[in-house]
């Protein structure tokens, strides 16, 4: 087992470089698990947008009732003080819309002149702006209808309060919605998220690690010395495969454990284990890919570069960082040629599993099979490359 031992030693020596990706991974998990909030529901629910409401006309019934309505129907964002902070909130998408109710708005509204306008900041033409504009118009049109047709005195607080109560009642009238059945959703677990991100770190670590091992064993002098030793070539190769597998498996196991421990609070449903299996399959495919890269790329600098390019590139293209449905047709077409794309597809499919009949599992199995297919293809390439190389070198 001399060869195997050397592999373990090589990996241990390079642990500091490899662990960077593990650190980034854990970092991501910590951050994401603190950010996760999304919840599913079983009936039709309106999409709400985040609105920052600043009421400078408070104390007046109209402004207060309007602000209340806006707060209730949106995701209210805590007001900030300065202009720049407002701009920050818009840019960072914390708030889709910033609505300032200016002083004197109530009085002006009752007078019917509508010269004191609401001040808004939003991204023109964005969904958030359209949504919020609709809400505002809906409420104020109704209010205008009542105020102008009933001629209330601007100082008659009671009458005004009655008007806004009427508006409130109307607002509760809703159109009936028929919602297609069978699209029930549970609360989103964060495990699929983590599982997807894991693919990135796994790719980076495996390519780098396998590259380091292969560099040593395919170096001409080292290889020739091994060839001259009494160790059988088949045994050397077996140990090489074993060593690489061992390394990739350890990396996978560590990350899976981290993943699961972070996902523990969401409960470990059966489909979580499907994800684990899926990532194991992906690990094998990645390992095969890494062997090809390791055989082709010798220079250490270039290898680190390739590892990053492949890991980041396929993560961006295949939907690990950015959901694939947001991407253009071209990107989606290219993505089909990347193993990670099928990995992500399997994750997406698996997280919605509710029953485990063969017909439900079949697509997932197919995606895993495609990944393994990639793996086989990579091995073929690796064998071809290594045969070609051994023919040309002593």
């Amino acid at each position, binding site marked *: 087992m001399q060869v195997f031992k050397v592999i373990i030693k090589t990996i241990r020596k390079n642990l500091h470089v490899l662990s960077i990706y593990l650190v980034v991974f854990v970092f991501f998990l910590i951050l994401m698990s603190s950010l996760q909030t999304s919840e599913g529901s079983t009936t039709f629910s309106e999409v709400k947008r985040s609105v920052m409401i600043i009421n400078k006309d408070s104390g007046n019934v109209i402004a207060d009732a309007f602000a209340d309505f806006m707060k209730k129907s949106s995701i209210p964002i805590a007001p900030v003080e300065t202009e720049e902070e407002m701009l920050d909130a818009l840019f960072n*998408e*914390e708030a889709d819309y910033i*609505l300032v109710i200016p002083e004197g708005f109530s009085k002006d509204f009752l007078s019917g002149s509508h010269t004191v306008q609401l001040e808004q900041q939003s*991204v023109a*033409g964005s969904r958030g702006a359209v949504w919020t504009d609709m809400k505002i118009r809906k409420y104020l049109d*109704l209010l205008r209808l009542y105020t102008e047709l009933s001629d209330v005195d601007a100082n008659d607080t009671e009458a005004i309060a009655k008007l806004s109560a009427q508006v409130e009642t109307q607002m509760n009238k809703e159109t009936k919605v*028929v919602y297609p059945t069978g699209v029930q959703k549970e609360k989103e677990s964060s495990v699929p998220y983590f599982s997807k991100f894991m693919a990135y770190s796994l790719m980076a670590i495996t390519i780098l690690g396998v590259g380091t091992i292969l560099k040593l064993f395919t170096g001409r002098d080292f290889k020739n010395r091994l060839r001259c030793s009494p160790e059988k070539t088949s045994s050397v190769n077996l140990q090489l495969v074993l060593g690489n597998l061992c390394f990739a498996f350890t990396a996978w196991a560590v990350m899976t454990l981290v993943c699961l421990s972070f996902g523990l609070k969401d409960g470990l449903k059966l489909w979580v284990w499907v994800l684990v299996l899926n990532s194991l399959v992906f690990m094998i495919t990645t390992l095969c890919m890494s062997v090809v890269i390791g055989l082709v790329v010798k220079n250490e*600098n270039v290898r680190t*570069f390739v590892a990053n390019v492949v890991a980041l590139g396929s993560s961006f293209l295949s939907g690990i960082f950015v959901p694939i449905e947001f991407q253009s047709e071209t990107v989606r077409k290219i993505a089909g040629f990347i193993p990670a794309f099928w990995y992500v597809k399997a994750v997406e499919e698996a997280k919605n599993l509710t029953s485990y009949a063969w017909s439900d599992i079949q697509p997932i199995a197919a995606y895993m099979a495609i990944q393994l297919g990639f793996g086989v293809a990579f091995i073929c390439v690796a064998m071809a490359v290594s045969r070609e190389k051994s023919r040309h070198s002593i």
Partner: protein
Amino acid sequence: MFWNIFGYRMKSNVRDFSTLFWTLAFPLFLATFFGLVFPNITSSTVTFETVNVGFYENSAYGGDPYLLESLKSAKQSEGIDLFHVTVFESIEASEEALNNQEISGYAEVAEEVVLHMQGSGFNQTIIKSFFDQYAQISSAIRDVARDNPAALEEVSALFEKEVNYTTSTFAGRDKPDSILVYFYSLIAMTCLYGAFQGQKEIMNIQANQSQLAARQNVSPVPKLKLFGSSILSVTLVQYLSILILLAYLVFVLRINIGDRIGMILAAAFAGCCLGISFGALVGAVVKAGEGIKVAIIISFSMILSFLSGMMQSSVKVAIEKAVPVFKYALPGNLIANTFYAIYYFNSNERFYFGMALMIGISIFFYTIVILVLRRQKYASI
């Protein structure tokens, strides 16, 4: 002599492909990916697009002529149609269109309006919002007419007059666009990768770090002159790399990073100095082999880029929200935020603050480096 060394350092830096891989090729590669992926996100999640809606009127129902008309004429504030309406003859046809996702939902109009929706997303919300409003207004009119029939005549006049309730007071220089976070972070990463260059230059002049350095140390050139010309050359090369990246972003990928070119160039330069001085600091202060130093630089720049939002823009928002000082204390975020200030704010306060910090930190780093360099004899080589 200074310019002679500078000239050869230039030649050597331009030909050092393994470093240029990192400082130039890698950022360009990432930029290409970002360019492929992100603009689509904006168009599909942020920008409003006209909603496809179906309309089926039950023939048994006498009908409300206004409903279809107002559905068709509804516009958002920019003047773009809210809906693209398809009128269906049968409920089956509507249902089919819904299943084929040609429409986000359809309205079945009879005595009561029923909406048939596919899921509960943004488009569905807009459809429902419209029909809710229509129903509420109609109900309100009935309400008013019951109390005061005479007022009914005023109603049509009332709705003739379109009232604009809001006015935009948006004070930003340019449109908010959260995907820019990714590109800012990419620029920041490129600046920080200058650290490789800084470290390399220190290695080339510290006699206990390389043979070449030892050889130059026995020449009659003062060390600070050597340092000055090396750093100047490497700064120029790195600055060029960043400019190439910026040009690629602006002219090839068509990313709008603002129109204040002078400020962009200045910020790029300050960021470049920050990265290089950081590398020089690591090179001069850390007592370890080249491998460890490079590992330190890689891990730092990776983590800093990550924190500035390179892999997930929400990371940047979250981290700056949790610890506001990080906006400026993390070099990656500092560089990204300076570019953000150029693009987004009319007032230059944040830009100047960012610039001052970047330059200040660079000077601080260089001061330490020079103090270390001044010691001219080594205990061992």
